[in-house]
């Protein structure tokens, strides 16, 4: 192993190389998967291509095993750890959701307190439902005009740590969906000084590790764990992700936690995509993300020249709640055009065949990454200009508030498993919710299990519904009824 590693460098991709070698060996498969290199499923093979389905294979000696990696997967992980400046890296095949959950499940257990901003992804609170840890929410600052949640202020985090000295970890979004970063380095120091771990949800921050003039990455800031969505800005296949850990975290324990919920049939399509993408990013990431930044800057200038739209950027930086801003994020405030973000999102898709990442009450987010070209940006800008020309209206009456402070009454696990009853949603005011309600994307809960349902929240839900947000979370798929605690 040591011998082999010495020969490894970042221009290698061990899983990919092993698969190529394996392909040439023409091994006769009397193992799973049952499609046998695609022969048993010609329609699927025709659709995905022989090249692709031919490497949809099972764990075996020459290809290693994701549950207990000792050869090529291990090498790929060591290379990934080096590329990201981490002590250890784990290939994940259950999306960044699985990376976030493994991170939270590693850091805390039943009854432990964990400090986190309320605008976290659902996967974080899901993990708390699983393990029974107690969230201590730091309410993020809110930009009143844009209606979006910002980062956590240093003082707020310091207060939370002071009030909850027994908490075991602090979790930080680095960055938020909108590209906003808290002062991660300072938060890491505060957490460590108090004997807590610092975890980072970097679902939207893969590129921080490779580009220049970007916010600091979690590993560089000294964080203990980070969940990194390689499939977002990194270019790997959907559902592939990385979990990174620092020197304060026992890698064997992390592996055990991962194996609690991870499949024993890890997909080699996903793993090889992580391997090849890591190689691409280390070799070419600097140049790629420079181009993405330039493209985003260009798009911002052009969109702001249309009028009424506000494609916001680094001017939001205030040194605290917006400690830094990710310039590759293209977020546009739409309310001054007289349209909710979700409306612009729908018009772009329905009338202009342009799919953007999401629209919420006041903003849209177009995701720019490794694969974008200026031609497509011209289309987006022109379509936005057209939407303004055709639909410009009166902005009064449009709701801005994107973030409502929650009133937490019970822990997520308690609330989720407690006796409950189903009520028509509009009759639930004053009750305690036992399930999630969120717009997807972005998948940040409006209500989480254990939170009190208020008139403001109900107003928000019905407004978002009316404007066409796709709502998810509750048991009732139509979201006409909500499960509340039966007490």
């Amino acid at each position, binding site marked *: 192993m040591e011998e082999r590693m010495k020969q490894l460098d970042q221009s290698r991709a061990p899983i990919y190389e092993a698969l190529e070698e394996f392909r040439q060996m023409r091994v006769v498969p009397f193992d799973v998967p049952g499609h046998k290199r695609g022969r048993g499923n010609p329609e699927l093979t025709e659709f995905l291509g022989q090249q692709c389905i031919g490497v949809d294979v099972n764990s075996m000696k020459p290809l290693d095993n994701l549950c207990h990696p000792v050869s090529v997967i291990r090498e790929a992980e060591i290379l990934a750890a080096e590329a990201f400046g981490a002590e250890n890296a784990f290939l994940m095949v259950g999306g960044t959701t699985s990376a976030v959950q493994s991170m939270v499940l590693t850091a805390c257990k039943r009854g432990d307190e964990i400090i986190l901003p309320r605008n976290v992804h659902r996967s974080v609170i899901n993990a708390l439902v699983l393990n029974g840890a107690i969230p201590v929410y730091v309410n993020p600052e809110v930009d009143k005009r844009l209606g979006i949640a910002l980062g956590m202020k240093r003082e707020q985090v310091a207060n939370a740590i002071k009030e909850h000295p027994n908490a075991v970890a602090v979790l930080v979004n680095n960055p938020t969906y909108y590209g906003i970063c808290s002062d991660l380095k300072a938060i890491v120091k505060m957490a460590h000084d108090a004997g807590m771990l610092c975890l980072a949800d970097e679902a939207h921050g893969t590129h921080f590790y490779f580009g220049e003039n970007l916010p600091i990455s979690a590993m560089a800031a000294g964080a203990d764990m980070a969940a990194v969505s390689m499939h977002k800005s990194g270019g790997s296949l959907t559902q592939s992700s990385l979990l990174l850990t620092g020197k304060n975290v026992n890698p064997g324990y992390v592996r055990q936690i991962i194996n609690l919920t991870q499949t024993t049939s890890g997909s080699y399509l996903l793993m090889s995509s992580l391997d090849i993408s890591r190689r691409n990013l280390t070799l070419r990431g600097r140049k790629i993300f420079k181009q993405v930044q330039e493209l985003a800057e260009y798009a911002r200038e*052009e969109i702001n020249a*249309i009028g009424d739209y506000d494609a916001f950027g680094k001017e939001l930086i205030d040194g605290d709640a917006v400690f830094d801003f990710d310039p590759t994020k293209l977020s546009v405030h739409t309310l001054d055009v007289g349209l909710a973000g979700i409306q612009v999102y729908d018009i772009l898709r329905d*009338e*202009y*065949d342009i799919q953007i990442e999401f629209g919420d009450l006041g903003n849209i987010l177009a995701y720019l990454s490794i694969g974008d070209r*200026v*031609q497509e940006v*011209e*289309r987006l*800008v*022109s*379509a936005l*200009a*057209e939407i303004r*020309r*055709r639909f410009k209206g009166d902005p009064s009456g449009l709701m801005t508030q994107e973030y409502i402070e929650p009133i937490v009454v019970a822990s997520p696990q308690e609330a989720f498993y407690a006796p409950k009853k189903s009520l028509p949603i509009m009759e639930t005011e004053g009750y305690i919710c036992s399930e999630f309600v969120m717009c997807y994307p972005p998948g940040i809960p409006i209500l989480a299990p254990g939170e009190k349902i208020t008139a403001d929240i109900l107003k928000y839900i019905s407004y978002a519904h009316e404007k066409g947000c796709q709502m998810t979370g509750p048991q009732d798929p139509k979201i006409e009824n909500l499960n509340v605690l039966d007490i």
Partner: protein
Amino acid sequence: MELWFSEHHTPDVKLSLRVNKQLYSVQSDYQRIDVFDSVEFGRVLSLDGNIMLTERDEFIYDEMIVHVPMAVHPNVKKVLVIGAGDGGVVHELTRYETIKRIDLVEMDEEVIKACRSYLPENASRLDDRRVNIYFENGLKFIRKCEDVYDLIIVDSNDPFGPAEGLFTKEFYGNCYKALKADGILVNQQGSPFYKEDASAMKRSHGRIASTFPICRVYQAHIPTYAAGYWLFGFASKKYHPIDDQDSERWNSLNLRTKYYTTRLHKGAFYLPAFLEEMLKEVE
């Protein structure tokens, strides 16, 4: 020795021209540009392997895309031409003395360079004092124009390559904005014969029809294009392509043409039944 240039019109159909020699080849930032000397069709310009024009049959395209709107609009002064780096459309436009200004927007400077060198007849009027050339993305250029042009001609490549943006609803909407209240938009609309071409044609026709109050399609027979059968779109805020055609005025200009006549103008708008049906589906 036999040398043949082939273009696939579908995966199962191709058109081949016997070539004397290849005169030029370059890979620009956007596409591969080639010029051939062919036996039957003279010089041929190809972009990414698709024939854009040949010396032998380009007159049909250029005349039909220019004279049809010029015989309808009584007073064209400012024209915007998008694409058309070969200069053929501009060549026809400069024959009208009433036109005061022609803005040509071509994304790829290399196309114009190639045509100046190897298709000098086509490109000869690019230096006309009324012509202003902009090397820019068409979609970007037009975004900033409002109530400026009497006529916009979109002479683009097919919708599956770098010109895709010129077949979109946002582009047509921006054209609407850039035109004056009595302005006309004419575009090359592809071919309705082969399946993939037909569905692209339907999509773009539907988008134009949802943008302009008047939107019609007309046809021409062009041997080197897919199925030898080509369509143009005529869209306008005010003028009807047949009801508002002024044959007398146009004929009094005494422009000699090889394809266009004021009689053919009317006939070109009478379409085969299958095509009428296709268009109706998306209107």
